[in-house]
């Protein structure tokens, strides 16, 4: 169901509109593509002037990476090449909400099976670890979700505190839904979770570019987030985006992303960058979800089939996907980290992997990675092994 159809559609939507840079066809006229241009140190103004003079439109400036993202046509691209103002160029790869099957439900008191499965019911949240959710927004005012401890940024897709799609609100609920008020509970529900919402997707789910995502995660870091949760991805890596995540990692932030729902053995980005934790999905029987992509970058598994969480309009819904597994891991990371605030991101990441419940083939495997994420086991691991804040990969 998910496999080739989604991959093909993804590829088609990602690049059919960007293939016009190819030469040798009359079909190029009037078509544009979004491209990331790197410039040599000190040549930013020259490059931007050249892009604009040639009819291109600069969309984003990535100063940390000596790069700008711009919409250009084939003629513009040729002019820029001829002027020699760029160091290199790459297609600005598309990043999409990882699609999820959804069924809405009337409001009712229910404990999602995933909480016990990841041992979130065995540890109280001690506070102080802000989680950033990059998604379709947040239904601020939902009775199950925090409101006073939530901040956000808009990235051009609408107000961060609204969500006409539902994906972002569902993800946020798995992390932060408040316990004891008759609704659902999230991994950090025993306390009051601190969230930062960066809305990059519109009400239709839409897509953004890798350069946009690089900007979004910088927003997360600037807001003081220690964990970044990304239930999104795309098939094509980006050099500039990879550098942005490496920088985020060096800044002490733990980035976590969905492995993808195409059910095949291909990488998805940002999940498959070394600096990002790639999350696979399992069902309520701890079996690998058929749609969950298998790769050598899979690090942890978490519940992602028929997970129950908050939905816009005050209700709740079941959704399935690696998108749903990802916030379980993000929540557990924050839950464990709240008890060991002196640990750094590498030490938390290592503890989650070292304490994961082995599933599937003995030891590491491509379906489950190191296994099912376990909050209490990670806590116990750190109690025994401690950390000195100098941990490395």
């Amino acid at each position, binding site marked *: 169901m998910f496999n*080739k*159809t989604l*991959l*093909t559609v993804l*590829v*088609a939507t*990602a*690049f*059919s509109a*960007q*293939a*016009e*840079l*190819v*030469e*040798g*066809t009359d*079909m190029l006229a009037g078509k544009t593509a979004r491209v990331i241009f790197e410039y040599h140190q000190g040549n930013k103004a020259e490059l931007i002037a050249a892009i604009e003079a040639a009819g291109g439109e600069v969309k984003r400036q990535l100063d940390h990476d000596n790069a700008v993202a711009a919409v250009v046509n084939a003629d513009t*691209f040729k002019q820029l*090449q001829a002027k020699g103002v*760029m*160091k*290199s*160029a*790459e*297609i600005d*790869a598309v990043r999409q909400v990882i699609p999820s099957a959804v069924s809405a439900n009337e409001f009712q008191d229910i404990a999602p099976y995933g909480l016990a499965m990841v041992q979130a019911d065995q540890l109280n949240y001690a506070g102080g670890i802000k989680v950033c959710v990059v998604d379709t927004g947040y239904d601020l005012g939902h009775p199950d979700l925090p409101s006073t401890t939530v901040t956000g940024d808009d990235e051009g897709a609408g107000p961060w505190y609204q969500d006409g799609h539902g994906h972002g609100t569902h993800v946020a609920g798995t992390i932060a839904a408040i316990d004891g008020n008759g609704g659902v509970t999230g991994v950090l529900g025993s306390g009051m979770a601190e969230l930062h919402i960066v809305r990059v997707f519109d009400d239709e789910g839409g897509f953004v570019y890798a350069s946009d995502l690089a900007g979004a995660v910088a927003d997360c870091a600037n807001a003081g987030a220690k964990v970044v949760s990304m239930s999104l991805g795309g*098939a*094509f*890596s*980006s*050099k500039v985006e990879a550098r942005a995540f490496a920088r985020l990692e060096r800044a002490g932030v733990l980035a976590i992303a969905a492995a993808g729902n195409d059910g*095949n*053995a*291909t*990488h998805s980005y940002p999940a*498959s960058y070394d600096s990002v934790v790639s999350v696979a999905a399992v069902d309520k029987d701890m079996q690998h979800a058929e749609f969950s*992509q*298998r*790769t*050598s*970058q899979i690090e942890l598994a978490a519940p992602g089939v028929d997970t129950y969480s908050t939905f816009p309009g005050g209700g709740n819904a079941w959704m399935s996907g690696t998108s749903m597994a990802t916030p379980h891991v993000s929540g557990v990371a924050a839950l464990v980290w709240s008890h060991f605030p002196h640990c750094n991101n590498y030490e938390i990441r290592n503890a989650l992997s070292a304490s994961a419940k082995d599933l599937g083939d003995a030891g590491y495997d*491509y379906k489950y990675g190191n296994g099912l994420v376990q909050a209490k086991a990670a806590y116990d691991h750190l109690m025994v092994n401690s950390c000195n804040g100098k941990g490395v990969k």
Partner: protein
Amino acid sequence: MVQNKLKLLSVALLAATLSSGCTFIGEHKFTGGGTMASAGGDKNAVFTFNAENCGGDEVKGRVNYVDHSAIDFEDVGGVSLKAQVDNFGYCALTDEGLENGVQECNCMDQFEAQFSYSSKNPQAPGEGTGFVCFFDTGEGKGNFHGAITAFNLIDGPYEGYGNVGTVNGNIQQHSCPETNEAE
């Protein structure tokens, strides 16, 4: 066996749904090589190719492709093949294709090469077919990172192998040699 046929049929139906009416247009000649992410593995896939469709009936070209860490073929030591290009060109939706219900190619608005391959891996011997789709500026200096949007092996020892990824390498577009009218 029945399962395999059903799989092929479903792939064919899917391709037809998405690309019915697509035909190869224009004359093109490319050479190149580079790396891309493995199909799920931890090492890069490596490829070289040349492909030429410069008018007339003759399509020429070769593809070499190695993905030693492809996780679905790990038990046989990965994918390694050489291939002969059977058809190549820029794949576009055309009026002629739509009118005649033709589907020559799979990847609309991209370059596509269809090929017949032989495995170079003695642990997975045999022959099969596949296709690769890509786009690139073709300026060949290695400072533009194009993409392979599909590298699919349809049958043979690596049936079901599929990969996509950003290319790190050098893809060069060449002019077709001018035809000599007198000949």
